[in-house]
């Protein structure tokens, strides 16, 4: 079909732009910029989210309430509005103008920090209460128990959810388009403005690119989730029992 041929030729002519933006004749863009933004975003958001989660479940209200308020604030407002806030406030606070890339990064760290803190909090509270009890009974302080017993387990169990949030972050980078951050969507916009007559092909390619990346990562997350769940079941029931359970549910009568 003509559409398909057009798409192939568009990719053929513009693949470099889509991949790295206008580099080296301009800032790094395209898929490269999208991925760097996402990886940096989630990497920086992660420690922040752990701190926020710890604050939210800490026994001290002076720590709990402000952090809870911040999380509700960030979750109740559209990402676009947060971008506008950061775009406006950050140069004021720093005292000099900030490139769009940095604005977007800071926004992502704040936004993902809040959402990820909910994921971390859920992961921590999902652990059996006995773990904390045992740690405290052995004499660990609250923070010590967190550091050596709770967090290592919770974070491992949360890996699939974290990958999910990473996929969300990739999708959120598209909003950089609004403030002219040179990421993938922006590159596609540039191509469209040049070609003008093939908008469907251009945006379909854009959708396809994101689909491939996100779908692959989601698949990895699902795979890991199954592996981890199986491992958890094995630990709780003892390996032999788990195997026996599996055989039993396979097809023996329910008598």
């Amino acid at each position, binding site marked *: 079909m003509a559409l398909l041929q057009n798409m192939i030729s568009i990719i053929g002519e513009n693949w470099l732009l889509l991949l790295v933006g206008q580099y080296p004749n301009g800032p790094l863009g395209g898929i490269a910029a999208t991925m760097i933004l996402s990886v940096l975003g989630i990497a920086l958001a992660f420690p922040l989210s752990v701190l926020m989660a710890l604050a939210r479940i800490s026994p001290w209200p002076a720590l709990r309430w402000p952090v809870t308020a911040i999380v509700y604030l960030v979750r109740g407002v559209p990402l676009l509005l947060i971008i506008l806030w950061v775009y406006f406030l950050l140069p004021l606070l720093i005292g000099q103008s900030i490139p769009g890339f940095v604005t977007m990064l800071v926004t992502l760290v704040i936004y993902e920090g809040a959402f990820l803190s909910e994921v971390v909090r859920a992961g921590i509270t999902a652990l059996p209460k006995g773990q904390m009890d045992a740690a405290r009974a052995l004499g660990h302080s609250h923070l010590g128990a967190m550091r050596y017993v709770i967090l290592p387990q919770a974070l491992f169990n949360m890996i699939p959810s974290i990958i999910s949030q990473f996929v969300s972050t990739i999708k959120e980078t598209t909003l950089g388009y609004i403030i002219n951050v040179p990421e993938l969507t922006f590159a596609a916009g540039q191509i469209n403005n040049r070609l003008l007559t093939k908008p469907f092909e251009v945006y379909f390619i854009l959708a396809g690119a994101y689909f491939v990346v996100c779908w692959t990562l989601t698949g990895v997350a699902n795979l890991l989730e199954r592996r981890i769940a199986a491992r958890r079941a094995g630990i709780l029931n003892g390996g032999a029992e788990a195997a026996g359970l599996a055989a039993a549910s*396979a*097809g*023996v*009568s*329910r*008598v």
Partner: protein
Amino acid sequence: MTHQVSSRDGVPMIQFVGVNKSYGAFQALVDINAQVKKGEVVVVCGPSGSGKSTLIRTVNRLEEIQSGSLIFEGQDVHAKMGSSALNHLRSRIGFVFQSFNLFPHLSVLENVILSPVKVNRVKRSEAREMALQLLDRVGLSNKAHDYPAQLSGGQQQRVAIARALAMKPPAMLFDEPTSALDPEMVGEVLAVMRGLASDGMTMMCVTHEMNFARDVADRVWFMDAGHVLETAAPDEFFRSPQHPRAQRFLSDLHAR
């Protein structure tokens, strides 16, 4: 103390003819040939894994069979039939589950009314009256407007029996009705079942409650490893079981 023998007896209501069932390579039911007569109370007993639950679940086709036929009221339950024919057949067989399976989002009264109204197309006001009578019969009319989560296990199971009776079935099946109950609640459910039996209901029960079997059953079927090994009147069965495995089962029971 069995219920009155009447001229209705002798007419088979549930007939197993050469019934076989497997799950893949495992054969759960092996060449079952037996029948439950109208007005009869049959108790099916045997060790765990013998196929008792599977047997009773084939009667209303909650489980499929691979060969043989299962006749209820002259119809083969496992013949090829349309879904509305099967639904109608099922509405004529009452089934009480081990885990009650009351509908949690409906009140007790609504649980009992729902199926007569939607399946049997009874008028709502009629159904309501009948439901209140049935709840009274099982001793729970004061709980009509409560929700299942507010009831004890024994109470929930009694509601489940009322719910099944509301369809006015000619036969009732009980799949380990008291096994999930705390011991002190077993009695109230068995009392309802005894009442049903003495009213002449055709019943088939899978149960471990041997006293109930001794007092109420007309026949006891002993199952092991998918076979019905022995059928006898309860007096005979409990006094002198014929099959060696039945003997072992009963002696294990008494050893407890």
